[in-house]
């Protein structure tokens, strides 16, 4: 079914760091359930753009609007700080490249997941603990680790815990910044498969930043290629990768090493 209004709309988003350009005049629509990959090399502006559209960084100009569960579309930067924070806690998720940035390392795995539920009003200890246990098993962490600190987890487990913490509130939109960066290849494959199946089953929209075109192909419906802060090519993921039009995209695609 085709929904007739976008979930998130970015219009002319630019961010300057003094004289330097972070991202320049980026516009796009994200539809419910759609997975959009932002690709490009380091310094191309993809993380700046991700931060601008997820209210983590105030853009220099442009606007970002979001359609809430009530069906109303609001300009994110005209909301109050409290409203934005509520949105981040309930309707959105943000998965950081480094799990330590998205987890509380000094509380247990169960509390990391349960905390998000408490933030949206859950009060019953038994229910919260049960939900946390359920989510740990969905991300393939055995429930006997519920009371352990994330510090005792491997890198791949920490990343899966961060994903559970983000998905437990049943968000409609998740932002991911290089979620597999720094993980070794077999751990990456497991994480990617997990993300792919969760996103499909729960019908979550996602914006994922990656420099890895294989990750983009596996997870995304659509991609935008960034260079020097601008979007230089966008389209259906398999079209961009199989028939790249722009010189820079052709260079990126031809630089993939075949195994």
């Amino acid at each position, binding site marked *: 079914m085709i929904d007739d209004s976008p979930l998130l709309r970015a219009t002319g988003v630019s961010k300057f760091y003094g004289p330097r350009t972070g991202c320049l005049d980026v516009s796009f629509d994200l539809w419910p359930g759609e997975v959009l990959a932002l690709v490009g090399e380091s310094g191309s502006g993809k993380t700046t753009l991700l931060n601008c559209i997820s209210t983590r960084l105030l853009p220099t100009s442009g606007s970002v609007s979001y359609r809430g569960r009530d069906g109303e579309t609001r300009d994110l930067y005209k909301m109050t700080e409290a409203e934005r924070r509520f949105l981040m806690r309930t309707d959105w998720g943000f998965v950081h490249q480094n799990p330590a940035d998205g987890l509380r390392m000094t509380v247990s795995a169960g509390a990391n997941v349960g905390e998000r539920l408490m933030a949206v009003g859950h009060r019953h200890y038994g229910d919260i603990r049960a939900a946390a246990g359920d989510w740990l098993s969905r991300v393939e962490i055995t429930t006997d680790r519920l009371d352990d600190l994330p510090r005792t987890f491997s890198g791949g487990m920490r990343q899966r815990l961060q994903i559970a913490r983000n998905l437990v509130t049943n968000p409609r939109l998740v932002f991911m910044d290089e979620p597999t960066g720094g993980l070794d290849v077999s751990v990456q494959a*497991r994480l*990617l498969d997990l993300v792919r199946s969760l996103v499909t089953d729960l019908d979550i929209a996602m914006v994922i930043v990656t420099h890895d075109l294989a990750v983009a192909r596996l997870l995304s419906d*659509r991609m935008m290629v960034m260079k020097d802060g601008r979007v230089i090519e966008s*389209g*259906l993921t398999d079209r961009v990768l199989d028939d790249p039009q*722009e010189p820079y995209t*052709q*260079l990126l695609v031809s630089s993939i090493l075949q195994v």
Partner: protein
Amino acid sequence: MATPLLVSDVSKSFTMHLRDGMTIPVLSKVRFALEAGKCAVLGGPSGVGKSSILKMLYGNYAVDNGQILVNHKGDLIDIVTAEPRSILSVRRETIGYVSQFLQVLPRVSAVDVVAHPLLQRGVDHVTARSRAEEMFDRLNLPEKLWHLPPATFSGGEQQRVNIARGFITDHPVLLLDEPTASLDAVNRAVVVDLIREKKKHNVALLGIFHDADVREEVADMLIDVAAFAPELAA
């Protein structure tokens, strides 16, 4: 009955920016229409652009000029200019594609690979899986493979997973890129039967078949792709 798919004056070239912007024209003024219940076959020597035509129809290749009009649930959509999400909707509901190569996802079993397009169309898990198993049974895929991920399968086994996935749905248009390339005679005959059944169900098919026997058995019309060769620049 409405024409399921119409190709009008489509041209395609590849510009190689890493080779000083060299442009290679591949196809020019491609025009044909598919008919419901008929199988059209793309003919011509290799390298003439047969696969490129299928890929353009599926939205996998960009198109320079022209229109590719598809009847999508009663609406006419031009694949050349459609938004990505419209193309995804066309792929889900209207145009199916059986390629020579299987995109293998880590840890997903063969039966789930094949059931997936049915799940996307709202069929429940149990029915989708049992339909997938019926397809495997017809295509003589050994039962011990059904619940394994196809990454380690042989070429012919992967091909059969691909065929099962492509034929399991009731897409009104089906594109076939050498579906019998790595199959033995018994399984080629199964594919010929599957194509006949699709025709009976009024599906419009467009295929590339290098195997002359299969081509003779299924083709209702031949489209000579050499006729769309761009004129050679002096």
